[in-house]
């Protein structure tokens, strides 16, 4: 464990950990995503070939995970801004975290069909 850090546990620490982990994951995906999109400058066939792998069930599940990471990072990021700039933000940081988690669960339920529907049709037939 690095020196000088203070792990206090509970909502504040764990939301910070989750924000950090999701941020790093999204950033690494972003590198890959810019590289795959750059294939449109190579040839339409090469681009379509790579994008075809994105439509397979396994990668669809990874996309669902990416959506989960992005939605949490976005919602918790708004909470961090509220903690920093809203005078009552620090007092309500726990309530805001549980609001973030609640909205995140609803959005993730809503994303099941659009993101995983295609994979389900490939696996189980339409």
């Amino acid at each position, binding site marked *: 464990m690095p020196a000088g850090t203070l792990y206090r546990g509970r909502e504040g620490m764990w939301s910070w950990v989750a924000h*950090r982990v999701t941020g790093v994951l999204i950033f690494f995906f972003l590198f890959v995503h810019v590289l795959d999109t750059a294939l449109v400058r190579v040839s339409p066939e090469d681009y379509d070939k790579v994008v075809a792998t994105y439509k397979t069930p396994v990668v669809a599940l990874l996309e669902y995970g990416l959506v989960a990471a992005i939605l949490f990072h976005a919602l918790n990021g708004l909470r961090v801004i509220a903690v920093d700039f809203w005078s009552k933000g620090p007092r309500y940081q726990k309530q805001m975290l549980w609001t973030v988690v609640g909205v995140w669960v609803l959005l993730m339920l809503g994303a099941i069909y659009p993101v995983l529907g295609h994979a389900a049709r490939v696996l189980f037939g339409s």
Partner: protein
Amino acid sequence: MSTTESPANGIGPVESAPVYGVDNPAPLIEAPRRRTKKTPRSTRGNFEMAAWLFMRLSGVVLVVLVLGHLLIQLVLDGGVSKIGFAFVAGRWASPFWQVWDLLMLWLAMLHGANGLRTVINDYAERATSRLWLKGLLYTATVFTILLGSLVIFTFDPNIR
């Protein structure tokens, strides 16, 4: 440790006479960051504050840009199954989506690079590892931003 140290080493017993006096003055300790004539008026810039503010401002813009991007690419019109060269060509025919994607590329890359810079500063304890990790990070970031911008600006729908 005994409680009867002599005044010479500077540590006296609690609630006794003062160790230092007129005849035995305390040694002068120089201030840790003493200002000299060469010291600039401000010894630190505002870079970290600017980076902190940038994370919040770019974050708000990215919430709109990225969630809109996810909605278009993964939810509307059959989700990911519609994406292909023709779909990209159709969207980048409009300057609106070119600007959207360019802004999203720059803000997301800089937001992510600054985030990873913070992570490196927190966990890489040796100065040389910090230097190499940040060098790698900045190289990859500049390369990816330039590559992505080049692709958006030079996109040719009639490449074949």
